[in-house]
C-alpha cells in the first residue's frame, strides 16, 4: 500500500508540474516562434537540461539496468560508451551549423533546414515522412515502457491502462498551454529530480547491500564473468562496433533534439551543453549499470525480460516504501520528460511542414493547430499503447537505426557543396528500404556480413549520396551561396 507520505510526494510532484504549466502558459505568446521554439531564447541550463531529459528515456533506468544485469559491467561501454563522446560532438558537427541557419533564415525543423539547403520540397517531405514514421512508433513504445514501469512499481494498484493515461495526461497539462517553454521548464525540474534521486537510490541500495566494496566482492566471488567483456556473446566485438552506428549518432537526428538545439539563445549555450554532456550521460548510465550488475547477485535468477524489473525490485526488497515512491517519481520524471518533447515535436512537424502544403497557416493559427495536434497524437499514442500493434512495435525496434542512417544526408548538406537534392533523396530512400528488408528478414542475414543491419545501411547512405550527387548536376551557385557563404562568414 502507498503510505500517506508517499501519496504526498506524488501529489507534490504532479502539483509542481501543473504550476509550471500554468506559469509557462502566462508567459508563452501565441506565436509560432514562441510556442514551438520559446523564441529561440533558451539559456545554457535550460538547453542542457531539456536535451538531457529528452534524451534519457525509460530504457536508461529499466532496459539498461536489465541489460547490465545480464551481461555485466561491459553493458556500460557497449550502450553508452561511444555516445559519451559522439552525441555531444554531433551537437557541434550538425547542431551548430543548423542553429546558424536557423538564426539566419528562421528555420525551425529538419524539413525546413535540409529542404532549404537543397532547395527541394521533396527532400523536405522525405525528412518529414521519415521523422514521423520513426518517431511515432518510438513515442508509443515510450508510453508502453513508462506505463509498464508505473504499474509494476505500484504492484498493479495503478493498472497499465490508467498508467498510460496518467503519463500522457500529465504531459498534456503543461505542454498544451505552454508549448516548448512548458516542456523545457518541466525538463529542468524533472531532469534535476531524476539525477539527484537516482544518486540517492544508488547510495541507499549500496548501503542496504553492505556497501560498495562488499557487494562488488560478492560479484567477484559468485559471478566473476560480470567483470569480463570477452565472455558475453551479446557484446561481442562485431556487435560492439556495429552498435556505434545506432544509438549514439541517432540522437541529433531525433526531431525533438534537433528542434531544441535550434531553440538555443547563443552559440555559448551550445558549447556549454557539448562540454558537460559527456559527464551527465556517464553519470546517469553509470548509476543504472551499477544497480543492474549489483542486482545480479542481490536478486539472482531473473531471466529475459524479467531482468528489466531489477531496479524496482531492488528498491522494493531492500529499501523502505518511501523509497519505492521516490523510485516511481524517478521513472515518471524520466518517461514524461521524453514523451512530452516527442509529442510537441510531432505536432510541430505537422503544423509547420505538412499543413502549409494544403493551406496558409498564420502564426496564431499554427499555435491553435499545434494544440489540436498535440491532443490527436496523444490520443493516438494512448490507443497504440493499449492495443500494442505488432507493426508499430516492429518499426520501433529499428527506429534508432532508421534515424542513424539519415545522418549522412545531414552531414553532406552542411559540409559538402557538391551534394545535391537527387543524392539526398536517393540517400534517404535507398538505405531506409534496405534497413526494412534486413529487419523484416526479406534479405538473408549473411548479406550484412554479420554486422548489425544499421552499419551496411549507413555505408549505403554515404555511397548513394556521393555517387548520385556526382552523377547528377551540381547545385546552382546561388543555392550553394545561401548556405556556405554563411558558414564562410562564421568559420573563416
Amino acid at each position, binding site marked *: 500500500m502507498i503510505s500517506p507520505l508517499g501519496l504526498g510526494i506524488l501529489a507534490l510532484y504532479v502539483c509542481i508540474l501543473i504550476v509550471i504549466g500554468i506559469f509557462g502558459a502566462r508567459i508563452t*505568446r*501565441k*506565436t*509560432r*516562434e*514562441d510556442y514551438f521554439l520559446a*523564441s529561440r531564447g533558451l539559456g545554457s541550463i535550460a538547453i542542457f537540461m531539456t536535451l538531457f531529459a529528452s534524451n534519457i528515456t525509460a530504457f536508461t533506468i529499466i532496459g539498461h539496468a536489465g541489460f547490465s544485469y545480464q551481461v*555485466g*559491467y*561491459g553493458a*556500460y*561501454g557497449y550502450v553508452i*560508451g*561511444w555516445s*559519451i*563522446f*559522439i552525441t*555531444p*560532438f554531433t551537437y*557541434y558537427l550538425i547542431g*551548430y551549423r543548423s542553429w*546558424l541557419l*536557423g*538564426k*539566419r533564415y*528562421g528555420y525551425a525543423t529538419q524539413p525546413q533546414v535540409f529542404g532549404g539547403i537543397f532547395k527541394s520540397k521533396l527532400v523536405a517531405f522525405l525528412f518529414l515522412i521519415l521523422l514521423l514514421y520513426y518517431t511515432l512508433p518510438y513515442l508509443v513504445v515510450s508510453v508502453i515502457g513508462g506505463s509498464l514501469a508505473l504499474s509494476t512499481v505500484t504492484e498493479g494498484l495503478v493498472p497499465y491502462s490508467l498508467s498510460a493515461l496518467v503519463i500522457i495526461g500529465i504531459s498534456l497539462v503543461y505542454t498544451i498551454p505552454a508549448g516548448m517553454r512548458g516542456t523545457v521548464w518541466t525538463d529542468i525540474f524533472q531532469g534535476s529530480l531524476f539525477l539527484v534521486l537516482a544518486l540517492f537510490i544508488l547510495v541507499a541500495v549500496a548501503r542496504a547491500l553492505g556497501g*560498495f*566494496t562488499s*557487494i*562488488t566482492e560478492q560479484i*567477484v566471488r559468485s559471478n*566473476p564473468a560480470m*567483470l*569480463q*567483456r*570477452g565472455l558475453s556473446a551479446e557484446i561481442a*566485438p562485431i556487435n*560492439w*562496433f556495429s552498435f*556505434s552506428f545506432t544509438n549514439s549518432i541517432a540522437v541529433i537526428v531525433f526531431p525533438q533534439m534537433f528542434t531544441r538545439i535550434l531553440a538555443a539563445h*547563443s*552559440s*555559448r549555450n551550445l*558549447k556549454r551543453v*557539448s*562540454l*558537460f*554532456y*559527456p*559527464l551527465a550521460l*556517464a553519470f546517469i548510465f*553509470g548509476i543504472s549499470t*551499477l544497480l543492474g550488475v549489483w542486482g545480479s547477485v542481490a536478486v539472482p535468477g531473473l531471466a529475459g525480460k524479467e531482468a528489466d524489473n531489477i531496479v524496482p525490485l531492488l528498491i522494493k526488497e531492500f529499501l523502505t516504501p518511501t523509497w519505492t515512491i521516490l523510485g516511481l517519481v524517478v521513472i515518471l520524471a524520466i518517461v514524461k520528460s521524453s514523451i512530452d518533447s516527442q509529442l510537441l515535436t510531432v505536432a510541430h512537424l505537422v503544423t509547420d511542414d505538412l499543413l502549409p502544403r494544403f493551406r496558409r497557416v498564420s*502564426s*496564431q493559427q499554427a499555435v491553435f493547430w499545434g494544440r489540436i495536434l498535440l491532443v490527436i497524437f496523444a490520443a493516438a499514442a494512448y490507443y497504440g499503447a493499449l492495443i500494442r500493434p505488432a507493426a508499430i512495435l516492429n518499426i520501433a525496434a529499428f527506429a534508432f537505426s532508421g534515424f542513424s542512417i539519415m545522418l549522412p544526408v545531414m552531414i553532406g548538406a552542411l559540409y559538402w557543396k557538391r551534394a545535391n537534392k537527387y543524392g539526398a533523396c536517393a540517400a534517404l530512400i535507398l538505405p531506409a528500404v534496405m534497413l526494412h528488408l534486413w529487419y523484416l528478414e526479406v534479405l538473408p542475414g549473411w548479406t550484412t556480413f554479420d554486422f548489425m543491419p544499421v552499419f551496411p545501411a549507413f555505408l549505403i547512405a554515404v555511397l548513394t549520396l556521393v555517387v548520385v550527387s556526382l552523377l547528377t548536376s551540381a547545385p546552382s551557385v546561388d543555392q550553394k551561396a545561401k548556405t556556405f557563404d*554563411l558558414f564562410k*562568414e*562564421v*568559420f*573563416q
Partner: protein
Amino acid sequence: MSFKIKFIMVLLIVALMFVLHNSFWLWELDTRIPLFFGFMPFAFFYYVGYALLAFGAMRLIIALAWPEPSDNVLSSFSGEEKVEK
C-alpha cells in the same frame, strides 16, 4: 592556422576517440587489473575515464574549431513580431 587544418585536427580527435572506444585489445585487462576504489572493475572504470577524456576532447574541439558568430549573423532573422497575448 586555417579552419581546414583545425577541422582535420578535430576529425583526428574523433578518430582517436572511436579507436579508444573500440579498443578490444584492452579487454584482457578486465581480469588482470584489480578493482578501482574497491567497487569499479576495469570495464566500468575505463568509461569513467573515457567520459573525462570526452570532456577534454570537447573542450579542445571548442577551442580549435567552434568560432563565435558575429552579431550580423545573429541579428539577421528578427523572428515573428505579430504578438498576440
